[in-house]
Every structure is written in structure tokens, then in C-alpha cells.
């Protein structure tokens, strides 16, 4: 619409800027140069592919295809969480999939149906980007929280058992670890909310303004994006931890071997 296109040549010129961070990564022997080059190459290929399939998703604009895309994204996110937390598949996969799917549907449809009052809540223009941003945020906060929760339980077994041994319910004994997980996962988000618009102009808002929207509309969308990502991340985490905890402890409340590496 009102956005200036970037030609492939100009995109190449823009990518030259990466020479600066690449130089310092190399100069200080960080060992990150190769990973950064591979990561950048992957990003370029992935975004071109996403650009292509999003083009067709928007072209077809079929609710079933859109919903199928969300389901696939949920499974991919669940698989990514398994790799990044090293938690056993039989403990985490179903809880995190249920957590993601439930939260994204409840929060996403609430936003599109109740707040935006869309005639077609499965419209690809809204459905795809909103569910996509929710998935991305849920994944990163869940990975941080789950790592904190299980590493805390393993490290502070004495606290967990002291509480259980002195009459705590399973929920009470797990509560300090859930608290730590929430603090670690959500502190950056809360800090980000507090300085929104002052220290940094957020991506959604920038994207909308570049796309030709008025700043008045852009700020309202940005507020809602912050609210729905925060809510969906918290809801999905609570569902995931609640379901995963049922498989993480034995009948006596003792923590089982939850990670793949502890098998060794």
C-alpha cells in the first residue's frame, strides 16, 4: 500500500551492514561468527519461504487452511520447546501442545471476535499474524520458564522435600519453583511494557506505521498485542506446568528423571 518496496539489490546493500558485527565477532574470537553467518543465511531463506507461503495463505484465505497452519505451528513450537528444554517427550509434548493450542485459541479469538469484532475471525489478514506473534512469544516465555522450573526443582530438592515432609500439598511444594519460573520468564516482558514507546518503539507499531496506518491506530494495536501476548504466554505456561507436573512426579511426590541428559 503506502510502503516503499526494497529491491533485491537494495536488500543486498542493506545486508552489508552486517559486516560491522561480523568484524567484531571475528576480532574478539568470540566463536560466534560461524553460527551468526549460518543463522543469517537461515533467516534469509526461511523468511523468503514464509513470504511465499503467506502469500498463498492470504490468496486462498480459507479458514480450514488457516487453522491447519496454526495446528502445524503449535506442533513445531512444541517440538522446538522439547529441543530447547531437553525435557522428555513423554512428559512435555502433550502438555505444551495443549497449552499452546488452548491459549492461542482462547486469547486470539477473544481479540479478533470480541475486541476487533471481525465478521470473519478466520480472515488470514488478522488470523495469521496475530496467531503467529502469540506463538512466538509463548514459545520463548515457556522455554525460559520450564527451564527455570525444572532446574530449580533439581537444584533445590531439599526445599521441595522439606516442604512436602512438613505437610505441604504438591501444589504448595511446587509453588516456589513456579514463582521463580514466572519471575524469570516475565520480568523482561514486564520491563518492556513499562518503557514501551519511551525507550523503544515496538515492532508491531513500526510495522503498521510503515504499512501506512495512522499512529493512533498503530498504538492501539500495539497495546492489544502486548496484552494478548502477555495473557497467552501466562495462560499457556500455567496449562503446560499443570499438565506436565502430573507426569513429572511419582505417587509420593518425588521428582522423576525429567530431562533426556539425566538418562546418561
Amino acid at each position: 500500500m503506502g510502503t516503499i518496496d526494497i529491491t533485491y539489490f537494495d536488500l543486498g546493500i542493506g545486508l552489508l551492514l552486517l559486516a560491522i558485527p561480523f568484524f567484531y565477532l571475528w576480532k574478539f574470537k568470540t566463536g560466534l561468527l560461524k553460527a551468526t553467518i549460518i543463522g543469517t543465511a537461515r533467516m534469509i531463506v526461511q523468511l523468503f519461504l514464509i513470504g511465499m507461503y503467506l502469500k498463498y495463505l492470504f490468496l486462498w484465505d480459507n479458514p480450514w487452511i488457516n487453522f491447519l497452519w496454526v495446528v502445524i505451528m503449535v506442533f513445531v513450537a512444541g517440538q522446538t520447546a522439547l529441543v530447547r528444554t531437553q525435557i522428555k517427550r513423554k512428559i512435555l509434548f502433550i502438555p505444551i501442545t495443549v497449552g499452546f493450542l488452548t491459549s492461542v485459541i482462547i486469547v486470539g479469538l477473544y481479540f479478533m471476535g470480541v475486541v476487533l469484532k471481525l465478521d470473519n475471525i478466520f480472515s488470514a489478514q488478522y488470523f495469521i499474524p496475530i496467531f503467529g506473534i502469540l506463538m512466538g512469544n509463548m514459545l520463548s516465555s515457556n522455554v525460559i520458564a520450564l527451564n527455570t522450573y525444572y532446574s530449580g526443582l533439581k537444584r533445590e530438592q531439599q526445599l521441595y522435600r522439606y516442604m512436602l515432609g512438613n505437610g505441604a500439598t504438591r501444589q504448595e511444594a511446587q509453588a516456589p519453583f513456579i514463582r521463580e519460573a514466572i519471575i524469570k520468564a516475565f520480568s523482561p516482558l514486564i520491563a518492556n511494557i513499562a518503557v514501551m514507546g519511551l525507550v523503544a518503539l515496538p515492532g508491531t507499531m513500526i510495522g503498521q506505521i510503515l504499512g501506512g496506518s495512522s499512529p493512533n491506530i498503530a498504538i492501539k494495536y500495539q497495546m492489544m498485542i502486548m496484552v494478548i501476548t502477555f495473557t497467552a504466554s501466562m495462560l499457556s505456561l500455567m496449562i503446560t506446568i499443570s499438565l506436565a507436573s502430573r507426569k513429572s512426579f511419582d505417587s509420593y511426590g518425588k521428582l522423576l528423571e525429567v530431562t533426556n541428559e539425566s538418562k546418561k
Partner: protein
Amino acid sequence: MLYINNACIAFGNEVLFSEFSMQLNKGESACITGQSGCGKSSLLNAVMGFVPLSKGTIRVGTTLLDKLTIDTIRHQIAWIPQELALPYEWVKDIIEIPFALKANRGTSFSKEQLFMHFDELGLESDLYQKRVNEISGGQRQRIMIAVAAMLEKPLIIVDEPTSALDAGSTDKVSMFFRRQTEKGAAILAVSHDMDFAKSCNQLIKL
């Protein structure tokens, strides 16, 4: 109060002990002694439901320990594990942990009573306001003993209560436990300290 019958604990093929039986009545204390690695702490952990018995049974009061009754059993116990180090900054926070639990809400926390127990155990009341890293291991042990007594549970289980204490402080702990048994509590301890072990009603060699 506590009945252990023909108990055996084994990890894989390694049998720590077998055919162990004991009975602890209300108002009695018992101390289990034995060489390091003979399974003393594992026995206490078995009573807490953290280590499974390979054979035998454990009964607390009239309740047979199994996966359905473990919560009921834990409600009757005040437990102090060995070398308890909890990740809190302040002593007062550690003291207050068990009193915030639903199971212990019937037992109100009172500083007066806590400081009375502190006094009996040779502790100054200003410890309550200190940071955990400002107190010694021996002080921490006695603080947890005072907390366990305040919970007013019928059974107190304590692992190595005097390992960081000198003779004078050990005597105070022995006297303190005696007063708890006189009030009706049963105390099961594990210790290498023979002076402490001899002060208990039963001395059991594992």
C-alpha cells in the same frame, strides 16, 4: 506411633539393610546409629515416603504408609533433613515456611514461643532478624529444631541434629527433645553422636 516391620531397603542389587523392625511409642525418643552408608538416612527418607522399601511395612499411628496415605502421614510429621540449607536470604523466612502451609494453619506461629524455644536451645532471639549467611551451621540446626517443635506434630523426625554442635549445645538439644517427649511427641533421630544417642529412650544400631 511409628511401627516399622521387617523393612528392607535396596538400591538395585545393593541391599543397605534388611529385616529391620522397630516400634516407637508416643512420648518416646529413639536414635538410630550405625556406620556411614548403612542406610540410616534412607530409613528416615522411607518413613517420609521419599525412598521405597524393597520389603516390609511402615505404619504411622494406625495408617499404613503407601501412595494413597502418604499425605496423611506427612501431616503428622515434623521433619528436619540432614544439613538443611534452604535458598532464602533471611532466617525469619526459613522459620516461617512450614507455618504458611495449609496443613499447619491450625498451628499459629508465635514469636514468644519461638524465642522461648531459642532460649532453651541456647540461641539468642536476635538470630530471627539475621541473614542466613550470618549464622553458623549449629545455630541453623537448632533453629530448625525449634521450628519442628512449634509445629506440635505427634512425630518429629530428625537427621543428625547435633552434627555441628559442641557438647554443651548437644546437651541442650537432648534436654529439649526430652521436654518434647514429655509433652507427648515421639522423636525418631539418626545420629553418629553417641552422647546424644544415649540420651534417647531407645538406641538402635542399624
